[in-house]
């Protein structure tokens, strides 16, 4: 779901603030059928959720009175802009997909979203469901996928550095805390002189997502600058991760190009990253996946479906969202698009457990994903400004990586910056 960042062409066209303020008055409400029981439901997603036409047709066959119109936005950013301009007004689809990056912003308006039916509750992994439950205990998001992180590595580069290449041996090698991970990385760098992982900020992402409290308390107080865990995370990343990283951040043109030419040997790797790697380096044979993650489990990314409460067909929309995020359908979506299910029951499904990825040396990515998802124990509290805080801290790491500022100066700059939020 992260590919979106790369294509911002459409976002760049928007310019003056005033235009959007006017545009909020306009709308194209989704038409619903007349009184003959026929209902037209609109579903708005972005990138690829794996909801193929065949999958949607199944639902229409089961419910002949329902017609589904599926609108796919190109990027999650487009969907975000659209969502907040129309939420609480008119013009949103009956079912709207929300990415986890901006889900916390949407949760501020949880009163404008319809509640998930009682019988669907408990379907998802605990932390996935907890993140979509608001202060009053209303669950307002149907979880679709998650991004349980493993480690992707180049077995050929590992071999050249004298490290093990078999995925179980690599898992045993990297098993442990972040310190152990960095030691292996230092070893690799000493042997080859080349960076071990792709980006320093992916490590920051990984560490912060293992904290209970990151930048804000559930009651809304900002603790970012006083939180010792955050300062530790920053210092660890700057001192240990920056020297062994090829890039500061991901998604640059350079970063995409580097995937194929062996600049680095490993990546922190959520399920959806597999497609990014195989797509950017189709002719490279060495990539493999190890069932391990430093410091316990880690999740990165994933989405929800929401039903705006003021829609025309809220009841029918809830039924469809319920069906789409049921384990059976989500396994089909996984096979279609690699979106890893967030439903506990899906992890028993043959379609998932038996899944192997040919590109990654036939690694059992289904089984690995299940293990990695179950290893996630901490649900980081993400307040409405999580994204802003985290983005600014990533910039701080980037400044050190680029040599623009030193460790302490960059931290101070960050403290000043977030003080103004």
């Amino acid at each position, binding site marked *: 779901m992260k590919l979106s*960042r*790369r294509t*911002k*062409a459409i*976002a*760049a*066209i*928007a*310019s*003056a*603030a*005033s*235009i*959007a*303020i*006017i545009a*909020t008055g306009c709308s194209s409400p989704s038409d619903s059928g007349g009184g003959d029981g026929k209902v037209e439901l609109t579903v708005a997603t972005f990138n690829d959720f794996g909801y193929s036409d065949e999958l949607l047709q199944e639902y229409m066959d089961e419910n002949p009175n329902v017609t589904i119109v599926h609108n796919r936005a190109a990027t999650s950013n487009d969907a975000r*802009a659209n969502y*907040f*301009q129309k*939420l*609480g*007004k008119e013009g949103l689809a009956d079912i709207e997909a929300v990415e986890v990056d901006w889900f916390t*912003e949407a949760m501020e*308006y949880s009163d*404008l979203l319809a509640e998930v039916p009682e019988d669907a509750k408990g379907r998802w992994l605990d932390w996935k469901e907890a993140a979509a439950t608001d202060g009053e205990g209303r669950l307002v998001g149907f979880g679709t996928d998650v991004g349980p992180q493993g480690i992707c590595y180049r077995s050929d580069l590992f071999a050249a550095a004298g490290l093990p290449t078999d995925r179980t041996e690599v898992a045993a090698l990297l098993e442990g805390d972040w310190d152990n991970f960095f030691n292996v990385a230092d070893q690799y760098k000493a042997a080859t002189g080349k960076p071990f992982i792709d980006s320093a900020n992916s490590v920051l992402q990984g560490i912060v997502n293992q904290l209970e409290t990151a930048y804000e308390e559930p009651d809304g107080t900002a603790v970012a600058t006083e939180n010792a865990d955050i300062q530790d995370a920053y210092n660890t990343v700057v001192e240990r991760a920056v020297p062994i990283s090829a890039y*500061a*951040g*991901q*998604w*640059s*043109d*350079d*970063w995409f*190009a*580097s995937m194929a030419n062996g600049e680095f040997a490993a990546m922190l790797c959520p399920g959806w990253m597999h497609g990014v790697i195989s797509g950017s380096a189709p002719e490279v044979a060495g990539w493999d996946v190890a069932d391990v993650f430093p410091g316990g489990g880690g999740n990165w990314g994933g989405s929800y479906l929401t039903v705006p409460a003021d829609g025309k067909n809220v009841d029918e929309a809830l039924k469809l969202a319920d069906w789409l995020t049921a384990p059976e359908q989500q396994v089909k979506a996984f096979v279609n698009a690699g979106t890893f299910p967030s439903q506990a029951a899906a992890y028993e499904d043959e379609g998932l457990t038996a899944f192997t990825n040919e590109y990654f040396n036939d690694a059992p990515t289904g089984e690995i994903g299940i293990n990695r998802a179950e290893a996630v124990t901490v649900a980081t509290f993400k307040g409405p400004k999580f994204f*802003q805080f985290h*983005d600014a801290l*990533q*910039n*701080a790491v*980037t*400044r050190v990586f*680029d*040599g*623009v*500022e030193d460790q302490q100066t960059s931290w101070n*700059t960050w403290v*000043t*910056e977030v003080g*103004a939020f």
Partner: protein
Amino acid sequence: MTATATRPPAPPTSRPPRPPRVISFSQRLSRWDLKVSPYLYISPFFIMFAVVGLFPIAFTAVISFMDWDLVRNSGQFIGFDQYAWILGQPQFWTALRNTFSIFLFSAVPQLIAAIFIAAMLDRNIRAKTFWRMGVLVPFVMAPVAVALIFSNMFGDNHGLVNNILTDVGLPAIQWHKDAFWSHVAIATMVNFRWTGYNTLILLAAMQAIPRDYYEAATVDGAGAFRQFRSITLPSLKPTLIFVIITATIGGLQIFDEPRMFDQFGRGGAAQQWLTITLYLYDIGWGQWNFGRAAALAWILFLIILIIGLINLLVTRRLVRDEGRR
């Protein structure tokens, strides 16, 4: 027009008072036509301007005094706090510096190049139309497409420019780390796009210069450079002023190029290439803080207004110069 033309001559005043003349409906229509029509004809522009220009500007001003929630469409009046916040942000001042720096890096070389190319095209060359159309081709390309291609060229590690530099043994340039070089790269995109446009405008102005001047100068023994300096350049003054003003307005609103310069579009980790419009966009659409974004929009408006006034004063002075000559 017809109403006045066909009116009968006024009756002699000696006659006894007559019952008031009944004006037919069509006559009355004609009179209205005469009085109201001109305003009706120009009204579409002003109605459109009121709806899409004046109203947003005024509404932005209202929002700039509020803590505005876009989704709930409501806000709380907080006075000048948003303006104070913006002016207190180091990022704002960095953005201001970057905007002017990129503007200078783009406008100055661009105008020099445009004058030079126009002077070359003004000479007797073969396939004139081909060359003239040729300089306009970059202008036809979508800015985002230009930015995408150039971003690729200016990659830090795998970019075309750095590949060439390292191949000939020079150190690679850190396009995305050093503020100066990022400005150069962005200015290059702007120049690529706008040089041809300015060239054509200047070329048109050059062609309007009477050829007699040059003939006379040639007879007097002036060389090509002397002719350019003493005839071409002074005659170009009014056109140059136009070009400079449009370049200034465009330069202060530069957005597409810096936005597409890296994968995040937020001006770099240390705000190396954050421009004012980029900052405005990020506050509005990144942080959903439309109160602050509106305040920044007004600050930008005032900056452009001030620069515009300076331009106007300079223009007036130069035009007076023309008259005295």
